[in-house]
């Protein structure tokens, strides 16, 4: 499966990259881990590839009181290997360990994952859950896009064809926050048949505050389950609540159907994951792969 013919340009500045994207049929190349397989199947055939892979201004990672900023070219391996990131944002760290495989994680980027917007992908789920912002640069300058507005449809984002993602901004993560990242996959690295990213804080009486639940894999795109969040807010978790939440979660989603799993299975699976995630969050939190 040889790739279709392309013109390749490697701009030396971000502004130059933006200018090059003005051409029709031009596409950004970063890690290439999502784009190249599509091209190999000739499902995508951009005429011009604009390789931004060496623009060092997009590589930075910064963690401070304002939160975590990840440059678009930050690779999964950069997140995995940086103990400061793991400490500053354990949910992100956990989610990244579920992404694809070792070799892919060595090349795949934050910006690439967001721009590709696979509906079962982990990073968009985390971005949505945390209320992250995506900074993009275009011919008219920079803008910030809220994650909820960014993800529009499967493989479709609010990014314009002449815009490049510059960075992902995650709000500060309270160290006491409880979180679970749980997904069900056929094999490690596969896209999840269903997954849940959830977190909450606890008040002085052990009641959940500001719970956030994002479904991915089972739904058309990553989405918050506000019905469930409303149910959980103010409650103390126990096995009964977890079970009820699981049932509610099943009912709350419109599950997708494909050759790998029918809709009712995904719906039930999501409910099971939510229940198990909540139970797990009572003692430790963290992540789990089935």
């Amino acid at each position, binding site marked *: 499966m*040889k790739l*279709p013919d392309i013109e390749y340009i490697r701009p030396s500045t971000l502004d130059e990259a933006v200018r090059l994207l003005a051409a029709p049929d031009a596409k950004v190349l970063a890690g290439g881990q999502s784009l190249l397989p599509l091209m190999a199947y000739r499902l995508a055939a951009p005429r011009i590839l604009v390789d931004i892979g060496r623009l060092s201004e997009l590589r930075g990672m910064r963690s401070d009181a304002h939160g975590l900023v990840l440059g678009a070219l930050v690779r999964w391996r950069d997140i995995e290997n940086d103990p400061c990131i793991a400490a500053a944002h354990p949910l992100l760290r956990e989610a990244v360990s579920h992404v694809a495989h070792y070799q892919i994680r060595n090349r795949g980027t934050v910006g690439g994952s967001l721009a590709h917007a696979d509906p079962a992908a982990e990073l968009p789920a985390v971005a949505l859950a945390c209320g992250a912002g995506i900074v993009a640069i275009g011919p008219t300058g920079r803008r910030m896009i809220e994650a909820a507005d960014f993800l529009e449809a499967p493989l479709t984002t609010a990014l314009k064809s002449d815009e490049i993602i510059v960075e992902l901004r995650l709000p500060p993560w309270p160290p006491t926050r409880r979180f679970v990242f749980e997904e069900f996959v056929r094999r490690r690295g596969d896209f999840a048949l269903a997954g849940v990213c959830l977190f909450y804080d606890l008040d002085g009486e052990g009641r959940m505050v500001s719970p956030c639940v994002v479904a991915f894999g089972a739904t058309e795109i990553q989405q918050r389950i506000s019905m469930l969040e409303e149910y959980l807010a103010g409650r103390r978790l126990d096995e009964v609540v977890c079970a009820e939440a699981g049932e509610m979660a099943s009912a709350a989603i419109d599950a997708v159907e494909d050759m790998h799993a029918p809709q009712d299975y995904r719906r039930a*699976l999501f409910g099971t994951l939510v229940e198990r995630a909540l139970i797990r969050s009572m003692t430790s939190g963290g992540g789990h792969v089935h």
Partner: protein
Amino acid sequence: MRLSNTLVGAPVQRVEDRRFLRGEGTYVADVTREGFCHVVVVRSSVAHGTLRAIGTEAARALPGVLAVVTAADIIAARGEVPKIPLRQQVLDEGLPYLQPVIAEGVVRYVGEPVAVVVAEDAAVAEDAAALIEMDIAPLPAVAGIERAAAGDVLLFPQSPGNRPMVFTAEKGDAADAFARADYTRRECFSVQRHGAIPMETRGLFAEWDDAAGHLTLHGAAKVPFFNRSLLAKMLGLGRDAVDLIEVDVGGGFGARGEFYPEDFLIPFCARLLGRPVRWVEDRREHFTAMNHAREMSAEVEIACTRDGMVIGLRGTVDVDIGAYVRTNGFTGPRNVAQFMSGPYRIPNIALDAAVYVTNKTPAGTYRGPGRFEASFFGERLFDMAAHDLGIDPAEFRRRNLVPEAQMPYKLAKMRHIDPSADTECDGGAYEIVLDRCLDAFGWFERVKRQGALIDGRYHGYGLGMFIEGGAAGPREGCRISLEQDGRVTVAVGSSALGQGLETVLSQIASDALEVPLERIRLLHGSTTLVQEGFGSFHSRSTVMGGNAVAQAAEALKIEIRKVAAARFGCSDSDVVVGEGMARRGDDVLTFADLGALGVSVETSFSNSKHTYSYGAHAVHVAVDPKTGHVAILDYLTVEDVGRIINPATLHGQVLGSVVQGLGSVFLEEIQYDGDGQIMTGSFADYLMPTAEDFPAIRSISLELRPCPNNPLGAKGAGEGGLIAVGGAVGNAIAAALRSMKVEPCHLPFSPPRLWRLIQDSRQAAA
């Protein structure tokens, strides 16, 4: 004097490994020649339709494109489009359903070759292929057996129907047995379509020497000699004008090496262009081009006495063979009928295997063809019967195993087939192997926890037993030549597909000739090596190739004695051959000296009796009822292979085949939609086992009963690890979920399917 057999039986490290580890293997995609060009096969994207026209203008116009070949060009050159004949179960019933090497007027599956593009480089060839216009008027797609059986749409209008053949296995009087049985049970089962999917896709490198009128084709595997004869005939050449060369091969598992359309098309292009051409199948293509396997559904019935003696087995298996009957398309169907009795003594059998054509990629053999399916059907039915009759499944099996005293034991006879296709279990201590397995597994202790619910998962233990037929004849050729540098060249007609053939046969040669392993140069497969070869299939290469080597070694020693005796001026019997020389008193001729004299022999080993390895599998599963996920916590196989030439390579084969079996049971499925469009066209959708999926596998190989039918005493082994997996795992899951009365009968046991079975049974209970 060196002790013989220091290497045979030892876990000798493989001689082929060095080049593989250093990245110095030569697979067909690595073969190059000055000025070679690249071939891409253009394939139908429609499952069933009339091929009205092929537009090649745009493709031809692309710079770098050298030729575009269609059926018209083949007819112009050869007078007709050749059809690929049967190689196994060669029956006239198959004739209307044979595949033409290129689509002729009609396409019958997505992936059928329609045209061939030759270009200066592979990427341009692919660009050009995308420019080929196919004008296909769609016909209704026969998407499955039900539609095929309905018969309203015939794939082959000239044929009697969509069912080329029914294989019938018979023994005793099944009708009578079922009429008088204390207990009968009938069930439906099925196995999904999947395939061998080796890591190396196929490829061919063809060179036509116009001056010599000779074709050389690299990329052969499995049965190069058969293919050479066939190709020569198709090209209108003498047999000696064609040579098939076997290089390193990235796995075959029964699917690689059969004669496919490309095996004609690529040489045809080489001849047409007068330049070497190379074709490398890509993975997307592979899913529609290389033989599929295993899609069978069965309705089978068992009859028993009330104390658990199986007195009858009958039923029908429907096989979806895809759009054409290829070279060995009939092998799986024939086997599923004949081998469903497994290692058990079942006196009355009536099993039909009906073969249907549908608009899918044609199917052929995949490791344990028909045997995996038969074992799944039979072993599941056994456990159901055992449970109904209140008999422990291990005990049930013990009662019904073929006793050693009744060996050789004839399996069911195949109606309408050459009686020489009758086969019998050669010998074996089936009960001992069962006991070893139960013991090593701790069966009787563990089954006390059948169905236990622990940490949200139901635990179950299951058994399955198998026989594995091997060593198909009729012959295998071997030539041994002594070289001037003291090395010994051993050339065999067997094919190497990754199974360690070079090492195993070198061990045999080394011991037989008392020459160090490093001095053996083992060549295999290519038609240039021996007069007559038969290849590697049906687990035959150790038995047939091994015995051919051993026999040739004896013949060589006789020849050495003769030559040396003439030189020494004595009688043959005065010459001692050993340790790399021929000696009589102080007169010595080394192998190097003899090599300079051109000493060599070529012999052929004949065998008409199949070997039967046999074994037992035991497995421990944990089922998560909420997700449908099954964890394999322990998998044990115990088998008797008669004689182990290399325990390390054998063990490797068993482990690998168990994992393939588990892939078949849980993960792998080729899926089509209702229009005959293939949906699993990549490794993202076709799920192969990975390193984390099945870590807990152990295997024990025994040499309890050497095979009485060949001098080495060896039996074919290498498929058994896979054969019993379906039944063993299905039985374990059924046992785990006994409280819910869930009987898994349809593969694959994917999480959604198991979850559905559990839901359905809960609803039924409510």
